[in-house]
């Protein structure tokens, strides 16, 4: 018999507070698929905020669960490395025999700095202002085309459609092929060890090579053309990225595709779900749409679309009273820090007019802070402004289907119905 949502949560809570502390492994995929990981994080924040565990999939690792400790790790890149040569930025190791992706988020300075700066201008304030009209037009078109009076998957029809259109624009990628971007984004973060439904390693590599081939063609067209304002042109014309190795090219593509796609997509879905679960907050929004700006930050905190980032200690150090050894894997659970009552009052509640809503961990802090944060906020703001104008009610008609991953915190399905 299938357990109800409430029964699953109650059982998980009992388990989280009964387990011997040393047996708690928050990177357990079930916890994310069932959305029960919050109970385990609550226990760790209380009893063992910097916690050592041994994962059957990912080996030994530290979990950093409190806001301030996460901040300390995130802002000390000299001690806590992101570099792919050390293990990169996710809890999972590259599968044996597979070359690690060399993306700038998984590099330490100085290489990181020059590559990041090559693409950063795309989200400069002036450029964002230019994109605003296009984003609004597309958002209106997508919302106006939604079915009425029948249930449909919000993830597919809204979240994926809007974020993929945006991504295609950033790359100046042929719009008719944009579904490929979604496909590559999903494949890039898929992990067969975690999710049996994920593609095999061979399928995954084949897909990533198709991606590299497609983008190589675009690169070759643009490298000899006059500099355009898309991400490919920017990298092709910047002396620091013009001669990237194939691994760096592929790595940075994956980074920009996943960074610009999965994250905003899941916040678009997560926001709707959060409002559905908190009808009083939706009422506040209906009465005062000027709260949307603030609500967007709250949605991003609430969803935390990337549940963690990983670092590797470059030297012995101390964190929250624990001795971290050189070479140790250190996982900053942004999802947990974003629920830390010591840093965020009433952190377990979704409050759209929360004071200081911007002070969340979802974008990370320090030199690797999300480069597209303002664009993501703008996309979400416009989406909610246009939803507010059109749909007083969007009914969520079944429980969401969540991604089985301890990295991407997201959804594959949220069935909704807009009354006719």
């Amino acid at each position: 018999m299938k357990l109800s949502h409430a029964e699953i949560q109650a059982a998980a809570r009992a388990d989280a507070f009964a387990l011997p502390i040393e047996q708690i492994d928050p990177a357990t995929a079930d916890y994310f698929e069932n959305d029960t990981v919050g109970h385990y994080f609550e226990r760790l924040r209380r009893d063992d905020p910097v916690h050592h565990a041994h994962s059957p999939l990912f080996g030994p690792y530290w979990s950093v669960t409190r806001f301030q400790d996460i901040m300390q790790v995130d802002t000390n890149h000299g001690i806590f490395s992101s570099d792919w040569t050390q293990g990169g930025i996710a809890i999972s190791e590259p599968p044996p025999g597979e070359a690690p992706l060399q993306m700038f988020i998984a590099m330490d300075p100085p290489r990181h700095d020059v590559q990041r700066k090559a693409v950063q201008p795309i989200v400069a304030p002036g450029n964002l202002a230019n994109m605003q009209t296009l984003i609004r037009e597309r958002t209106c078109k997508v919302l106006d085309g939604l079915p009425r009076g029948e249930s449909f998957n919000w993830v597919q029809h809204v979240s994926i459609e809007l974020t993929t259109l945006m991504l295609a624009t950033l790359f100046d990628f042929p719009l008719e092929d944009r579904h490929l971007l979604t496909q590559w984004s999903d494949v890039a973060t898929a992990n067969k060890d975690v999710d049996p439904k994920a593609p095999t390693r061979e399928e995954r590599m084949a897909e990533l090579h198709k991606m590299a081939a497609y983008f190589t063609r675009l690169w070759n067209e643009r490298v000899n053309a006059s500099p355009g304002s898309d991400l490919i042109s920017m990298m092709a014309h910047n002396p620091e990225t013009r001669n990237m190795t194939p691994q760096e090219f592929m790595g940075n593509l994956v980074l920009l595709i996943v960074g610009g796609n999965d994250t905003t997509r899941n916040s678009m879905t997560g926001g709707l779900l959060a409002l559905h679960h908190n009808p009083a907050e939706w009422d506040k929004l209906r009465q005062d749409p000027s709260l949307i700006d603030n609500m967007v930050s709250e949605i991003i905190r609430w969803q935390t679309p990337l549940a963690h980032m990983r670092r590797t200690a470059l030297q012995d150090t101390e964190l929250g009273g624990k001795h971290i050894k050189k070479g140790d894997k250190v996982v900053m659970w942004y999802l947990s820090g974003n629920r830390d009552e010591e840093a965020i009052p009433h952190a377990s509640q979704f409050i759209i007019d929360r004071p200081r809503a911007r002070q969340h961990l979802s974008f990370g802090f320090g030199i690797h802070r999300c480069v597209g944060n303002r664009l993501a906020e703008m996309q979400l703001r416009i989406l909610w402004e246009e939803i507010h104008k059109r749909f007083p009610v969007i009914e969520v008609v079944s429980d969401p289907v969540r991604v089985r991953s301890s990295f991407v915190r997201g959804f594959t399905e949220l069935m909704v119905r807009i009354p006719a």
Partner: protein
Amino acid sequence: MSQVHFISFDGVRRSIETRIGENLMRAATDNAVPGIDGDCGGQCACATCHVFVSAPWAERLPVMQTKEHEILDFTNERRKTSRLACQIIMTPELEGIEVHMPEGQH
């Protein structure tokens, strides 16, 4: 109390009172000065309180620490007078300090 003047990207001047010892990011956010976000809460961990400090106050500021330098390096329009407002602590020497804001915080 000391006076601080924030000048927005489009030229709007907002003058507020703050106390000695307060940082300029907090002074701005407590007074709802638009254009200063302070996402990290003043820990020198983001660059969402980036300002350009006018003369003569710019020279009166303490030398910046490595962290501030690194974070500012990722802003869109860093200048010689760029600082993070959260790292500017109000002192009597800074009375009347004037700071300009960039087009956007990142």
